[in-house]
């Protein structure tokens, strides 16, 4: 029997706020253990929560970006369960009345873009971190650090609209791009900024009713999501095909060994006893706040991607790469002003991205070093055929390490800006005509004689030409002659 997978995702997005969700402790990553704690996030007796406006604002921005319905009055609730990394043994989250509901995220898939529906997005606090198993003396222990406790999270729950792991991976990629685009999260899955659990069930193709679902936790990379889901779908299919039944359960995905482990169901048969948090009055979001957030929303990545394709005549691939981040898209658009869009795109996608990667720079650092305007000056000369490609690349290399305009760089390196095509071509022709012997040898395949010819042109240029340029011009001219 053919089966169809039905998958829903639950994503946790750690917000890049300065302080925690309900207290003024730093939300930063990497401090000494238990040093970013206060009475509130440590759950000390008598301490109370106070809501971080920036976290709510981030939720509003994401909600607006994906077209959620925003609740003007939402509610914080307590989710009660015992766990050592939860200081209060309850988590402040939203339950009955979340901030955002509905909406959809557009996702680029091989067959074209699709919109995956969302159920809700809400604000909540993160737990601390526990490290286990470890030892203390001769005893096994777990160690607990509460620095992360209380860091703001958004929980986003999708509709069960995915049918294949690749769709889930594409969804997460799109989500990661969006939250970075909005500046609300670094969304680094390695660092746990973006975490994902998945609900999976199988049903015979054509059947409407859902099968029994399992929940997979610990899907901590986009590749892991895809692999973990494949593994679980295969497991369920094998079980169903052998006449077995799926047990509702929670599984842990072990990416290192590409293995799923079933967690004991009893331990996870929770009764969370949600109820409205009496320490926090209702969260009221006034219309003006929503309008401000809407007004401050940037052009969204999918809209910009589509615009790049039409406005700059770019292939879809280019448009997608250039809108990977907002900084890159901004850089590109700044660069492309007055230039051919594809020329600018080629340079960004090859030279700029390679340089950024080589130097491990953020795009912001790159932009500070080689502002788009400066690079535009170079590309303008390329477009005007004032600089041949190799020289342009040489200038680009100088730009990475030195200040100055294109002309200044050429000057500084003893290369005359005009010592290129227009001026060198007559010299090239003259040298070729003055040395028929070496030319004949070259054309006969003894390419080493090219060095002699380059030397002759260099001499006639008074040493002002760039050897690579001369070489390129000679090759082109010789090729032309051999062809004719």
């Amino acid at each position, binding site marked *: 029997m053919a089966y169809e997978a039905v998958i829903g995702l639950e994503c946790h997005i750690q917000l890049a706020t300065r302080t925690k969700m309900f207290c003024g402790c730093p939300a930063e990553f990497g401090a000494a253990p238990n040093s970013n704690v206060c009475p509130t996030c440590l759950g000390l*007796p008598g301490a109370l929560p106070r809501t971080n406006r920036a976290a709510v604002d981030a939720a509003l921005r994401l909600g607006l970006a994906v077209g959620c319905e925003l609740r003007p009055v939402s509610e914080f609730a307590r989710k009660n369960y015992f766990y050592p990394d939860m200081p209060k043994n309850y988590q402040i989250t939203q339950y009955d009345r979340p901030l955002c509901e509905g909406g959809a995220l557009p996702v680029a898939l091989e067959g074209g873009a699709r919109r995956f529906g969302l159920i809700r997005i809400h604000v909540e606090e993160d737990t601390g971190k526990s490290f286990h198993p470890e030892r203390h003396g001769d005893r096994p222990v777990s160690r607990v650090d509460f620095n992360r406790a209380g860091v703001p999270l958004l929980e986003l729950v999708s509709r069960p609209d995915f049918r294949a792991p690749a769709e889930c991976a594409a969804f997460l990629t799109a989500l990661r791009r969006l939250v970075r685009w909005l500046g609300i999260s670094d969304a680094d899955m390695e660092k746990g900024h973006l975490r994902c659990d998945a609900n999976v069930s199988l049903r015979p193709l054509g059947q409407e009713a859902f099968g029994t679902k399992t929940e997979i936790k610990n899907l901590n990379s986009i590749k892991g999501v895809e692999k973990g889901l494949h593994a679980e779908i295969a497991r369920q299919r094998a079980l169903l095909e052998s006449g077995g039944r799926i047990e509702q359960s929670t599984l842990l995905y072990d990416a290192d060994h590409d293995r799923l482990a079933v967690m004991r169901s009893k331990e996870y048969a929770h009764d969370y*006893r949600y109820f409205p948090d009496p*320490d926090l009055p209702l969260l009221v979001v006034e219309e003006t706040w929503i309008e401000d957030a809407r007004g401050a929303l940037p052009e969204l990545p999918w809209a910009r991607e589509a615009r790049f394709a039409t406005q700059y005549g770019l292939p879809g691939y280019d448009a997608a790469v250039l809108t990977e981040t907002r900084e890159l898209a901004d850089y590109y658009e700044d660069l492309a002003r007055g230039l051919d869009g594809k020329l600018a795109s080629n340079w960004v996608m090859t030279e700029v991205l390679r340089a950024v990667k080589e130097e491990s720079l953020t795009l912001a650092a790159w932009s500070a070093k080689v502002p788009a305007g400066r690079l535009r000056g170079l590309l303008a000369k390329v477009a005007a055929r004032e600089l041949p490609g190799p020289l342009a690349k040489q200038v680009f290399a100088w730009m990475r390490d030195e200040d100055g305009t294109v002309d200044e760089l050429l000057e500084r390196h003893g290369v005359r800006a005009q010592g290129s095509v227009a001026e060198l071509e007559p010299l090239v022709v003259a040298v070729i005509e003055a040395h028929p012997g070496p030319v004949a040898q070259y054309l006969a395949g003894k390419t080493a004689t090219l060095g002699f010819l380059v030397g002759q042109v260099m001499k006639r240029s008074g040493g002002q030409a760039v050897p690579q340029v001369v070489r390129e011009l000679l090759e082109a001219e010789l090729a032309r002659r051999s062809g004719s």
Partner: protein
Amino acid sequence: MSAPEAWRLSATALAARVRGGELAVDDAVEAGWRGPAGTWEAEVRAVVHADPAARAAARPREGPLAGVPVLVKDNICTTDYPTTCASRILAGYRPPYDATVVSRLRAAGAVVVGKGNMDEFAMGSSTEYSCYGPTRNPYDLDRVPGGSSGGPAAAVAYGLCPLALGSDTGGSVRQPAAFCGVLGLKPTYGRFSRYGLVAFGSSLDQVGIFARHTGDLAAAYAALAGPDPLDATTRPGEAPDVSGWRAGVTGLSFGWPANLWREGVDPEVVGGLEEAAARLERSGATRVTFDFLPGEYSVAAYYLVATAEASSNLARFDGVRYGFRHADSADLRALYTRTRSEGFGPEVQRRILLGTYALSAGYYDAYYLTAQRARTRIREEYRAAFARCDFLMMPAAPSLPFRLGEKIEDPLAMYLSDIFTIGANLAGIPGLSVPVGLSRAGLPLAVQMLGPEDGEPVLLRAAAVLEAGGEVARLEGEDTPEFAWPTKR
């Protein structure tokens, strides 16, 4: 008055002398300890943490409460004394921060002179459920001081200090104030910050004040009331001005829901109530009689809401970060269950179980939600009443102080001793318990007055009239009537 007699002074008179240099701060702060504590404390046991060095650390000479000694209930965080909620689970715990009410007291010049005994986690009405043992009523040592803030109430009654802080979730300030013959104010919900008050029922909890004189209550209220950025449930905007507490009651009307005490209330309590009402009428107030929703509904709603919130609030006591941890905690399950089962007393465990049940799957609607709906109904009842009068009068407790051990075996009987006080917590309105004399057996008699939200000024005006026997003008400085001190027997 000589320094040794300073303990008899009102807080405001004491502070005035400290500010004026007539009384050394040390003599003000230590007055109660050097005086009546020696006579009473060993038997009453109102104080659970005392520390002469901590008392000596601050010597404030300025502020409306300069040098005034204040006993603080053991569930309000203080950096200079342990804060244990009279529970084994917090044995020895010393908070790294002061509750906002404590910071404000200190800023006003007051000195915390120790921590007061209480029912464990404020769950009780007799101060018998304390890991330190019971507090006794100074008016009769065989009787309870009420609870849960029995320690602070008894301390103010016998003269350790003119002011004390308690907490009131279902009557825990007003009922012990009534049993100990002192004033006990529970403010409007959100008027005092709860930051640093160890939570029991968060939507019901308020810090409250014990005092012997209305003027002291007004001074302490002014020092403590007002919004706190650390507590999202404090009311925004300025607290009402209580400086007019001597204005009398002429032109005010009080509600008289006599159906509430037609049965089940001690006749002497009713007698005290009648007498107080008559005094208010003689002073120019008018009585408006009407029926009111019986208190049983409040008790029922309260024991679901308060325990539900408590079951969650008390989850943090798990032996991981602070407090008691059971020595045999080989695995996590044992760490939690052993620590909590040995750390919490039986009444606390009973309430955690009840609250867990009320929130658990399948029962939430029937219990928790129903209780919250009933709470809306009760609020409407009060709102309707305050459309007809400025404040309500009713008993603070249905009985006179009962004997130690009398109700400890019957949780429901204990719960019903809060029948008149619980409504104010459910409705978030202020309540004030005022002593009105002694019973035939020499036990304190008291009445309770309830006001609408932010109705504290009216309640204080009425309290002043009752304190002064109708002659409010007497409540000026030195002429303040002497408190009806308990006598040792």
